[in-house]
């Protein structure tokens, strides 16, 4: 996670944080209503395509941009509240996981062509994978916290956020990346063109890190929901009745730790490749 801090010494990366935050927030504000999937419950917000795209193109600047953009969206939308704190963290991971996992997607992105675009079918699959994992990670981070402070139940919110995030990224993400990558590359604004390789975390056991990230995100979602609805976990963990919620916190916590550990294991350095003149 070294690059998350080291990027702040680079002026262009700082500007990319500001611009991606402003774009994300603007779309959150203008298209606040979204397209309903289940009216009143779940909707596709077109703005949600931006965090994974920003993450892949701008690396850590995209992750910070997504986090700050969501906060500004709350601010301008008048919904700034305690949820905004973990909304910040969740949206950070929504932009962070895609670029960290991109080079560790089990061969879907080949070592010969690490470019952050969806120019072939395998890369489309890689994008959908990282988008799904980051959507679920964002969902469980926010829902776990809001369940702890007893604002919104985990079972409801984790699924809603995951679907909201993933739906837009699933449909729009691959097309948007193909359209935007050539221009951003020409302007020299792909994060691997701006940052120095030594400023990016080395990582270790990246494939295991990738598996850990998937298990942490999707496993946390599934187990958390099962425990929350009382189908499996509550008896298993021995918590019942009034302590029911403790089971949700405790059952999701190991998965959140997995996401954190995986964040240190994954690198992003593999995307720094020598380009032919």
């Amino acid at each position, binding site marked *: 996670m070294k690059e998350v801090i080291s990027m702040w010494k680079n002026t262009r990366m700082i500007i990319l944080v*500001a611009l991606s935050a402003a774009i994300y927030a603007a779309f959150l504000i203008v298209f606040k209503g979204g397209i309903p999937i289940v009216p009143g419950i779940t909707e596709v917000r077109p703005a949600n395509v931006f965090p994974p795209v920003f993450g892949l193109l701008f690396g850590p600047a995209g992750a910070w941009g997504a986090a700050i953009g969501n906060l500004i969206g709350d601010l301008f939308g008048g919904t700034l509240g305690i949820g905004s704190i973990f909304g910040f963290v969740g949206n950070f991971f929504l932009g962070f996981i895609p670029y960290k996992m991109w080079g560790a997607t089990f061969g879907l992105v080949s070592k010969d062509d690490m470019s952050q675009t969806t120019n072939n079918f395998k890369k489309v699959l890689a994008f959908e994978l990282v988008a799904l994992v980051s959507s679920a990670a964002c969902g469980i981070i926010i829902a776990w916290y809001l369940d702890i402070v007893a604002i919104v139940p985990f079972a409801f919110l984790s699924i809603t956020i995951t679907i909201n995030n993933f739906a837009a990224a699933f449909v729009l993400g691959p097309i948007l990346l193909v*359209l935007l990558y050539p221009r*951003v590359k020409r302007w020299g604004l792909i994060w691997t063109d701006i940052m120095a390789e030594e400023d990016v975390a080395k990582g270790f056991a990246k494939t295991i890190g990738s598996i850990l990230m998937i298990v942490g995100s999707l496993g946390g979602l599934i187990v958390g929901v099962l425990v929350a609805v009382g189908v499996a976990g509550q008896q298993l963990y021995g918590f019942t009745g009034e302590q029911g919620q403790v089971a949700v916190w405790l059952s999701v916590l190991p998965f959140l730790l997995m996401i954190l550990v995986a964040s240190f294991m994954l690198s992003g350095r593999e995307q720094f490749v020598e380009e032919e003149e």
Partner: protein
Amino acid sequence: MDAEIYIDNNSFIHRLDPRVKIIIFLLTFVAILLFENPLWMLPITVLIVAQLVISGALLNLRRIRYILIVLTVSSMILWNLFSTGETQLFWRISLESLSFAVARTMLMILMISAGMILITSTRNEELVNGMIMLGMPYRVGFAISTALRLVPTIVSSTITISQAQRSRGLDLESGNLLERVKKFLPLLVPVFISTIRSTNIFGMALESKGFGAKEKRTFYLVFEMRKVDYVVLAFAIVFMAVSVYFAILGYGQIEGLVRF
């Protein structure tokens, strides 16, 4: 749309040091979360309502009344479904679950109100400078303040592009889910491109003025804490301490409440 939430009122709350307002905002969050009984939330509710009236933030709350209504209705339904109690009222609703649902709804509305008071009474640059003076690195502060300043511009260009594309026949309202989502592409691409293309020039302009040359920097906007700021801050800390004391003693909970 009007993306400006700050109201130029020069009220007592407007005149407070932004650092005090940020600290009160954070303390308010903690104070709201301490109790699950709506009656015990009344003191903080009174304080927040008073601030809403003094700062003029009620006007802004009115702007988001539909969000507040949706939050209230969904929260009342959800928390009655996800909790129960010993004193049955009707159907799945018990006195305990109803009290809890009311408290959770109050909590959300109060938190949004606290945020609204802060941004209604504090300019963007004051807010960011306040955060920097509280210890946030200035590079992060710069990114936030730049983004805050750009949002209204990008919102406006998004609306312009949206209208231009609609005039060419783009219909965002028709079609199945997949078709409707895909229709947003002609909006997303131009907004992204027109915003990001200025990055290099922006960077050169900043560096030519010495941005990032030193670890510490100076500001045109400098705040000094006045006596009234210290008094307000002391009141907030005492209020918080008393609330925590009662919470530790076990007050403010709902007897017989069972949460799933």
